[in-house]
């Protein structure tokens, strides 16, 4: 009964074009952010922060970026890990080579470099389509893996080829406790989510979706595929790059190319698909699902085992985890190919009608 849009008349297009036209939604989202920023820090355990919340935030940021490319512009990429890596290593180099480079600046510069590389590897998308493109983007993945191991300049000539960053300092704020790191990431996520949302509901967003849905028609009404696709690659890899930088700087603190391996690319693609293609909200759902599920299974299975009185070996747990994880992914794809975001909107529609069935 409370969730209603009737009685809320839009008197201007401005009002009608808001992100959340329904006031209850606006309230809800503000509340959510408030909770995330104030309540969560007060209650969550250190483990929650370091092992779940921070990875969740960073990966949802990356998923958000990927969703712009795959979900909105329809260009499937399996090279996301590479763009994260570029972001991370670029940010690292700005940090160690440029004296007094502010942290946020190097993170953003990481994004910028990722953009450059992203556009470069986006160029083939003008000719290559669909699965061919998807596989072709793996070239970026493997090349990055190789380059960051082989070219010692990127790693500031560290003998092992693994790099690490010192304490994080932003605007004189020393980001070292888990809570601070969490808030630091949250800041990025909120801002980027807002910007991304704005883009996808503006002219450029419509161009991307037009290319995705019917590229011939799009070009006939004067949309240049080259511009649409490359901007999508640029924006996407910028966000992904920043996420990569955060992953290295905030979450790991020290990393090697393996941290951005092909598995990462697949993981992110999963988040986007399971969460919902072409949905900002979905990126978060997907990330939550993919981050939490394995950890949960990994811990719940032994507990469950001990409940029924048998102790499962670590290996068995890991294997069962794999199986259930795979099974659930297939299950979700079957029951809702359009992802959790679709479930969400269906739920909302129902709620709107509630308590009346139709």
């Amino acid at each position, binding site marked *: 009964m409370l969730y209603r849009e009737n009685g809320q008349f839009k008197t201007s297009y401005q009002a009608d074009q808001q992100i959340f036209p329904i006031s209850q939604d606006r309230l809800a989202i503000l509340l959510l952010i408030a909770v995330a920023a104030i309540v969560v820090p007060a209650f969550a355990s250190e483990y929650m922060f370091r092992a779940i919340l921070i990875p969740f935030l960073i990966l949802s940021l990356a998923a958000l970026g990927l969703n712009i490319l795959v979900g909105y512009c329809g260009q499937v990429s399996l090279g996301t890990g590479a763009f994260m890596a570029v972001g991370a290593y670029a940010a690292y180099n700005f940090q160690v080579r440029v004296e007094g480079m502010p942290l946020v600046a190097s993170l953003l510069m990481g994004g910028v470099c990722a953009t450059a590389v992203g556009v470069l590897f986006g160029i083939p998308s003008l000719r290559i389509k669909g699965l061919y493109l998807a596989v072709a983007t793996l070239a970026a993945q493997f090349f990055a893996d190789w380059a960051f191991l082989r070219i010692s300049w990127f790693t500031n000539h560290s003998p092992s080829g693994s790099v690490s960053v010192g*304490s994080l300092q932003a605007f004189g704020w020393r980001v070292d406790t888990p809570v601070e790191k969490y808030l630091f990431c949250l800041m990025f996520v909120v801002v980027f989510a807002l910007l991304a949302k704005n883009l996808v509901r503006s002219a450029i967003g419509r161009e991307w979706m037009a290319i995705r849905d019917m590229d011939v028609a799009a070009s006939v009404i004067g949309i240049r595929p080259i511009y649409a696709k490359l901007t999508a690659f640029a924006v996407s890899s910028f966000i992904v790059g920043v996420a990569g930088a955060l992953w290295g700087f905030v979450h790991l603190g020290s990393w090697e190319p*393996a941290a951005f391996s092909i598995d990462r690319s697949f993981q992110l693609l999963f988040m986007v698909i399971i969460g919902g293609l072409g949905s900002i909200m979905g990126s978060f759902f997907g990330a939550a699902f993919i981050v939490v599920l394995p950890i949960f299974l990994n811990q719940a299975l032994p507990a469950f085992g001990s409940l029924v009185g048998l102790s499962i070996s670590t290996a068995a747990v890991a294997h069962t985890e794999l199986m259930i994880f795979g099974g659930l992914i297939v299950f979700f794809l079957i029951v809702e190919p359009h992802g959790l975001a679709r479930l969400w909107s269906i739920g909302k529609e129902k709620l709107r009608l509630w308590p009346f069935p139709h």
Partner: protein
Amino acid sequence: MKTRSLTMAVALALAAAGSLGTSIAFAQDKVQFFPSLTGRTGPVAPNATPFANGYADYMKLVNARGGINGVMTLVEECETAYATDRGVECYERLKGRHGGATVFQPLSTGITFALTEKIPNDKIPMITSGYGRSDSADGGVFKWNFPLIGHYWVAGDVVLQHIAKKEGGWDKLKGKKIAVVYHDSPFGKELLPIVQERSKMHGFEVQLLPVPAPGVEQKATWLQIRQQRPDFVIMQTWGVMTSTALKEAVATGYPRERMFGTWWSGAEPDVRDVGAAAKGYNAVMMQHGAEFEAPVVKEILEKVHGKGQGTGPREEVGSVLYMRGVVGAMLAVEGARAAQEKFGKGKPVTGEQARWGYENLNLTQAKLDGLGFKGVLRPISTSCADHMGSAWARVHTWDGSKFVWASDWLQADEQIIKPMVRASADKYAAEKKLQRRAPSDCQG
């Protein structure tokens, strides 16, 4: 619609339970908790599994012997599948359990690098016997890292010493060509500095042959070796990469006698399915090798497997990587014991106290023999400056069915390694803007 709402429910349930699941803990009191990050699945499972088994079995043995002055040991495993982010998650999960983790042994260079950034804040020491950062032997910079009884540079130096001995002196290496086949990752590259250092000193040529992980594709690598015909091949490989290398060596007819692995490339799983074809292959061993006759092994068979509490298969007990697990566990326990001496006998020690124990480790031959490591290990004594405690190693060779010793005890040349370690550690400190520990920090 039905299925959808069902799915919704499932999703929510999982999300909720996910946060719940993290707080599952096994209530125990007055135990010394030793977390164990395992690699029982994934690319390195064949090699990492015996290690985990050895680790667990020795802890059981300690309890069978009456614990650490009465304090029972407790092991909880967490599977990383050799993936760094899973390793970090495991670390975060276990570090606070059961009254706090004593010490971590990630058995992965990648995870080691990541944890090195975290342990100082959490005040938990980390033992990385034979892997991880070589420069972390410098306790002045790496207060919490303990590459006890060896790191990659020791391995590299000893291999080269062994080769030189066989050739009849360092001068004989002049003009020779040595190829290094290495795992293309920090783990693999950590070996290179010492080899290059030695090649500068003795004028032998080094040919670097990186192999992308996991290393199942080495045809090109070995064709190059066949073309270049290096006099020796040193292998810094791990998991399937080693056995693949041996097979390719067989296929290209490179003599196994001239192949030398480091101590992660010389265990049974590496040669098992090559069998007789691997005859003559050598690998440097971090003191212990395959020790089926060692007293400690007999004791484990009797007191652990004998009681049907063995973690892995019985025949694996005493094999190379199993022993590495046992040694790792022993070092972990002895550090805690040493800490008890200082901070109170019969009470569990915190990670911070344990750290002191590892830094003031003094395992005399008598002590080691008492623990059942007669003929397996040599004395180990650490200090504030030296977190390694011993630089001895031996080389063994595969006779087609088992490993046999091919060299006497060899000691890595500290004159060469110490400066390298210090230089590298200083670079690290500079990058992170860290200060070396003040001498006062080393007292008490």
